[in-house]
């Protein structure tokens, strides 16, 4: 089965082929370079058609002429814990639904805000942008990426991104690096929601009667001072203490809030990088204890929550995990760098609105900010600051 050289060369000359592919390659590169100005990647919700894109550009130009407000894409990156909030917010914003769209912008909400504008239009006009009036064409686009708290905080500091998502404070994330206090002061902290991680145990342990533990016991478990469930009124089984990766926001928050120091050393028996793996491990094991994101708790399944007692107060799943005193509750931050730009303020205000708190925070199993804190946070980004 030797190839037939004559037939091949009849079909296409090799030189022609090379020339053609080379030209195509250059054309492709040229196409890239002309596109590199507007960053529209990383958005998976709104897929505008060609027509929509071109009209978007026209609208953009006219808005720029009229008010000189930035219409660059607003970018964010960071914690996987904050990601659901920021990303859901961004996709609602980018799709710019009309009032009465029951999935995205129900009529009750439009009535509550007393508007007939589209969702992103309504919130952006408060900050001076003009409404576009079109689906999938917000006044400016928002793109949120997913990495880690530390990456988000650094990205904001190096001004690679506009908003840095973090599930612990920038101070704790940067502990041990070269950042001076003056530089830390440049971070502007916006809290958009609250997370409260319950303590979970293997089903066998809860069934055997361990329904709550004290915080001292929790500390001792993670320092390997208590190693058997019988010391806590459970069965005579070793304790398998599960933790998260060193340096991750969840781990840092646990160190700060439970152990009292971001640099404290704990020695869990096993660490996992993801909530999913942690959930699987707790379900597999019959002697495990772990702290896990709310969405992964199975109250009646293999990953049941137990109560945590602190100074006589019992914190229980479904009751009071969002309260400020609960040590595994933590603020979810959106950091900005050196003040908050008008664009950043418009988006953060969107997350802080009653609509945002219900659709982005509570819908993702986090706790909305209590009214008093919500008020303080909203004042920081109020539209009146930008007039």
């Amino acid at each position, binding site marked *: 089965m030797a190839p037939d050289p004559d037939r091949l060369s009849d079909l296409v000359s090799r030189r022609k082929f090379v020339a053609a592919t080379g030209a195509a390659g250059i054309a492709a590169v040229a196409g890239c370079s002309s596109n590199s100005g507007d960053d529209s990647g990383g958005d998976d919700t709104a897929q505008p058609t060609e027509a929509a894109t071109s009209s978007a550009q026209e609208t953009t130009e006219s808005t720029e002429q009229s008010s000189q407000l930035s219409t660059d894409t607003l970018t964010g990156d960071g914690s996987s814990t904050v990601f659901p909030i920021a990303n859901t917010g961004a996709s609602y914003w980018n799709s710019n639904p009309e009032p009465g769209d029951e999935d995205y912008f129900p009529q009750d909400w439009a009535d509550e805000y007393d508007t007939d504008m589209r969702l992103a239009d309504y919130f952006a006009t408060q900050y001076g942008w003009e409404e576009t009036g079109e689906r999938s064409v917000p006044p400016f686009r928002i793109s949120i990426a997913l990495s880690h*708290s530390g990456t988000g905080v650094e990205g904001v500091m190096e001004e690679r991104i506009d908003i840095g998502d973090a599930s612990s404070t920038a101070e704790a994330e940067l502990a041990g690096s070269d950042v001076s206090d003056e530089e830390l002061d440049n971070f502007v902290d916006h809290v958009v929601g609250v997370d409260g991680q319950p303590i979970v145990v293997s089903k066998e342990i809860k069934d055997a009667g361990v329904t709550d533990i004290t915080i001292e016991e929790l500390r001792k478990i993670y320092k390997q001072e208590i190693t058997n469930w019988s010391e806590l009124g459970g069965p005579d089984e070793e304790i398998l203490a599960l933790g998260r990766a060193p340096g991750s926001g969840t781990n840092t928050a646990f160190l700060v809030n439970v152990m009292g120091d971001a640099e404290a050393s704990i020695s869990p*028996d096993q660490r996992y990088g993801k909530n999913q793996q942690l959930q699987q491990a707790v379900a597999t094991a019959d002697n495990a204890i772990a702290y896990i994101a709310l969405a992964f708790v199975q109250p009646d399944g293999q990953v049941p929550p137990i109560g945590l007692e602190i100074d006589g107060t019992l914190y229980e799943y479904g009751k009071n995990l969002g309260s400020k005193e609960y040590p595994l509750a933590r603020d979810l931050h959106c950091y900005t760098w050196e003040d908050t730009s008008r664009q950043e303020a418009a988006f953060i205000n969107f997350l802080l609105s009653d609509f945002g708190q219900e659709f982005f925070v509570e819908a993702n199993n986090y706790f909305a900010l209590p009214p008093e804190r919500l008020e303080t946070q909203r004042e920081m980004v109020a539209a009146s600051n930008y007039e």
Partner: protein
Amino acid sequence: MASRIAERFEHYRSRNEDAALVLLAVTALSLVAAFVLFYQQSRWTVVPVASFLLLTVVGWVRYQATIARGLTFVMTVATVAVLGLIVAFLVVRAWPAFDQMGLEALYRTEEPLWKPAKTTPWSLAPMIVGTMVTTAIATAVAAPVGIAGALYISEIASDTTREVVKPGIELMAGIPSITYGFIGFVIVNRFFYEEFQTSTIGNYFTVGAMIGIMALPTIVSVAEDALSTVPEAMKSGALAVGTTNWQTMKSVTLPSAFSGVSAAVLLGVGRAMGETMAATVMIPHTKGFADPVYDVFGGVGETLTTVIAFEGGNATGRHIEGLFAAGVVLFLMVLVLSVTAQVIQARMRSKYGGDR
């Protein structure tokens, strides 16, 4: 020296058109410019890249021989440069960490061991021990199985069997490592936890066994190559004096191919040592020393690769420099293994190379 280079350059020049040489030089320079701009994260990187592609096409059409020769040279330089740049980058990023701890980072055994911070001492020793332990277990699992398989394929199996089995084994090398990791996490780890009551879900033994299985295809195919280079004349000679097939294998084939087979094992072990994904999914990620050190079922478990994969995403400051230091140590360990394997292989070739 300088005059010789000048002379060679003159020779080269006399054999090529000046225009072609200028074109080649500009092509190479645009590649260098592309690298410099890329390093500075400039958005203009695309300009020299485009000019490189354009000039290559123009050169290919007009001065094909010169450009082809020049391009193959440039590509080789680029490949070697990538290795050099990786090493330089690793060392530069790890330098502050070594500056703080010196070589003590490699053997310190007192607490605190981890994680690297400017004010407290730390150590890579638990991870180095972890890498050695898992690699040793992987070798213990993979070497006997791999050599037996290679011997069967090379000496015993019929041609038909060989034609089916050998590509099959090589196909194993193409299975993504996360697949092995998933099987290890869901089946192997759980089996040991439930049936043998190990204290954690996953330990050095399960990880070592799994990466040993992953090293099998390398060992089988390289060892099989080594066994088949043993000259037929040697085997026929042995058979002629009346030995059985097994006696020939045992006393002639295996000893003659010994260096090649050990090279196969070392290459496989090198792969096992650098294996990351499967191990990261399976290992408990706790740093410390098992007591005694051969307690491979105990609770501690972390290797150089897994610590980098597990913590790299979140690390900042000295922490990430410490992880780069782990990378340097791992690089050196794998380098020593693979150089040894290649030296052995070269020796093997010069000894029996004539039979190909």
